[in-house]
């Protein structure tokens, strides 16, 4: 074996930058960095000169100008005299509420379909496969438009309710019309009022104190119920006997919430037909319903496949081993199967949530005023500020996505198998 000579120390030759592996990576990177800076410089230079020619220097003054367009579906108060900034905020909240509702229903549907796809019942399994393949292989935009058309074309008009051709569902509480769905609205006779943030600025924001109180009590109840569970675990570890706790845990959650609802004086405001339209209740426009239904059904098909893969990935030996230890079926599910399956299911599940949130931007196709419809739609067209609005919109979506994926990373790290 020949000895490897030390690299010559006779001084640095220029060619070493290329041929010496110690320096080469540095050379390549500096060249790459230089190229990238050059590229961005070129882009910025082009943009600056183009904008100068158009006479539109970058500025965000337009955000403070009156928007002068109306937004029909909104969570906060808004009039057309409000600013573009407020319109964008309303749009952002519309995006978030749509994404939130969609994620919940898509998860429920997706889990149910994924489990049923593994059913021993041949017919059920086949029908679920058909559902999954149909929804996965047809574009989501088409689904949104189809559901929207179904809403408009086949649902009764409000006047049909007057003439008796159509009737409300669930004891006259829900009205499904071609303009949207009216559902009862929870109201409080002894309401605590709103907590108004940011005064009268464009970002003013009223948070219902009733909701805050209810949530605090609910989480308190859940916390107490977990305490009871921990206590039961402790008793089981010490004595081997598990006390029956389900009624304690359930009542700890339900009773405080029921009491606070009674104190606040909860009652339902029902929608009523007045004139040509329904009044009262919570109104969800047909575009919101169409997006909600279509995005839920579409994403559910993908979630179902993730759930199926997760369940199939837990080997049969695991449940057999649990049974051999004498663990009951339900506790086998909650202690052995689910923790392992969830580890596989949840990362793709969260990326489906991410997809749903991004797909909610297709709202523009059916006229739902989300962030794309307000900031990158009407505001863009009215002010002609393409650069500012599109970049702002992208930044907001990027922030939402990064927030969701940081949750995913946190979860992945917390359940990661610690290998020896």
């Amino acid at each position, binding site marked *: 074996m020949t000895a490897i000579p030390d690299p010559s120390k006779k001084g640095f030759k220029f060619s070493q930058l*290329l*041929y010496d592996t110690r320096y080469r*990576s540095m050379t*390549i*990177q*500096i060249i*790459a*960095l230089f190229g*990238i800076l050059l590229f961005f410089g070129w*882009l910025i230079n*082009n*943009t600056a*000169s*183009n*904008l100068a*020619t158009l006479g539109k220097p970058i500025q965000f003054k337009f955000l403070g100008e009156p928007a002068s367009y109306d937004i029909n579906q909104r969570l906060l108060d808004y009039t057309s005299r409000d600013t573009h900034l407020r319109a964008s905020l309303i749009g952002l909240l519309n995006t978030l509420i749509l994404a939130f509702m969609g994620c919940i229903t898509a998860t429920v549907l997706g889990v149910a379909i994924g489990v049923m796809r593994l*059913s*021993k*019942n*041949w*017919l*059920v399994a086949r*029908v679920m496969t058909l559902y999954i*393949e*149909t929804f*996965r*292989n*047809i*574009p*989501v*935009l*088409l689904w949104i*438009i*189809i559901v929207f*058309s179904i809403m408009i*074309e*086949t649902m009764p008009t409000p006047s049909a309710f007057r003439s008796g051709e159509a009737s409300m569902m669930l004891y006259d509480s829900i009205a499904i019309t071609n303009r949207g769905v009216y559902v009862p609205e929870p109201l409080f006779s002894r309401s605590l009022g709103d907590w108004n943030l940011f005064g009268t600025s464009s970002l003013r924001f009223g948070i219902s104190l009733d909701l805050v109180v209810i949530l605090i009590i609910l989480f308190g109840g859940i916390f107490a119920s977990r305490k009871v569970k921990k206590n039961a675990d402790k008793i089981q570890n010490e004595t081997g006997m598990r006390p029956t706790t389900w009624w304690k845990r359930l009542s700890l959650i339900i009773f405080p919430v029921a009491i606070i609802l009674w104190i606040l004086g909860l009652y339902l405001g029902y929608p009523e037909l007045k004139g040509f339209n329904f009044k009262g209740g919570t109104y969800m426009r047909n575009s919101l319903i169409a997006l909600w239904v279509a995005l839920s059904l579409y994403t559910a098909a993908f979630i179902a496949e993730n759930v199926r893969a997760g369940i199939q990935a837990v080997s049969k030996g695991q449940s057999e081993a649990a049974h051999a230890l004498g663990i009951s079926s339900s506790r086998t599910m909650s202690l052995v199967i689910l923790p392992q399956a969830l580890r596989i299911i949840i990362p793709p599940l969260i990326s489906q949530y991410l997809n749903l949130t*991004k*797909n909610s*931007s*297709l709202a*523009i*196709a059916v006229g739902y005023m989300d962030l*794309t419809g307000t900031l*990158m739609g009407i505001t*863009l067209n009215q002010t002609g500020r*393409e*650069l500012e609005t*599109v970049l702002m*919109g*992208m930044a907001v*979506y*990027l922030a939402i*996505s*990064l927030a969701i*994926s940081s949750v995913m990373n946190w979860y992945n790290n917390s359940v990661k198998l610690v290998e020896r």
Partner: protein
Amino acid sequence: MVDQSFVRTEIVPEKPAPLSQAGIIGWFRKNMFSDIPNTILTGVVLYIIFMVLGNILPWVFSPTWNSVSLTECRSILAEIGRDGHGNGGACWGVIRERWLQLMFGFYPSELYWRPVLSFLLLGVALAPVLFDGVSRKILFFTAVYPFVCFWLIWGGSVWFPISVFIGFIISYFGFVIGNKSAGSLIGVLAAIALPIIWWFILLSPINSVLNSILPLGSEAIESDRLGGFMLAILIGVTGIALSLPIGILLALGRQSDLPILKGVCVCFIEFIRGVPLITLLFVASTLLNVFLPPGSNFDLILRVMIMVTLFASAYMAEVIRGGLAALPKGQYEAADSLGLDYWKAQRLIILPQALKISIPGIVSTFIGLFKDTTLVSIIGLLDPLGLSTNIRADMAWNGILWELYGFVALIFFIFCFSMSRYSMYLERKLATGH
């Protein structure tokens, strides 16, 4: 005393299983009616199927194939005693009259042979990539195909695609010669620099000279006449073909130990994956011209293709990164111990295995990309969805909905479903497990 005990000396012939356990009845009992909840479930599902089919089938089977307007459809349906004004039956006349438009958009009908020919050639070009047992020599045609396709669909002078293609040949020879004479890095630099000089400086004067000497060409087609599934396939195939190599490079960049390169790749991938495609299409339709040198104005379809490709390559990069990460570390170490350099190790050892692992992800990215081409209707291109709005604007078909959406959905389903089946075939073919 007679021995009364009885010993059977011959084997009793096997009896068939009881009727309730074998054959069709047994199968039904086992798979659909095994216990009470299962039977109830079967009943519920059968009822749902019955309801859905009972509503849809009469609508689908409607004798309106030859009608020329919605009014005529309704009168045909009223004649046979169906509800003419509601949803008594489908009006298939719109598909018969407009299916060519849904396929080709406003492409001149006497030139339909050009896109048809280019899609047939697409089949030829893809055959050696997709299936074994096809001669490898056709791969040369695959390399030339994009230029042939461009010329067939857009038409115009034949010299433009040819001279762009020559740029790639120059790049190849630049690499080979540079590599032999001065080492791999010089080869790579030559392969990048020479074609850039050719395309940006020499191409247009040489083109105009060639055009004046020998004006070969065909009728040029404006981009705004392209539409329908032709447009969807065009954007989809371009995105698919270009996003795979770009995605591989991005994935390798993200896995590399060069911090600056890695940072750039991570930023690019996370940015593109963090924003919805529609915002990138807005960039294509409103902003891209602002970013480019003043006066440069190129086609909206081309801009959309660029954005769709960038979008797909970020997703592709993540899929391939998953494949790279799934490879055992021993494979990388084995490649190093054989003394292979970085590119050889990637090309011969790492990528073949990593790409094989990521086939399902790659194909589902492709399917997603193809489905996402419908988004271009939002920025005003005439893809199948945009066209169906357009067809409804015609007086004769005003008010028609489900037939068009159903047809478009069916075609998308056929494309996407066959792609997913192909990926299963590929997985089976490449499986090397035990």
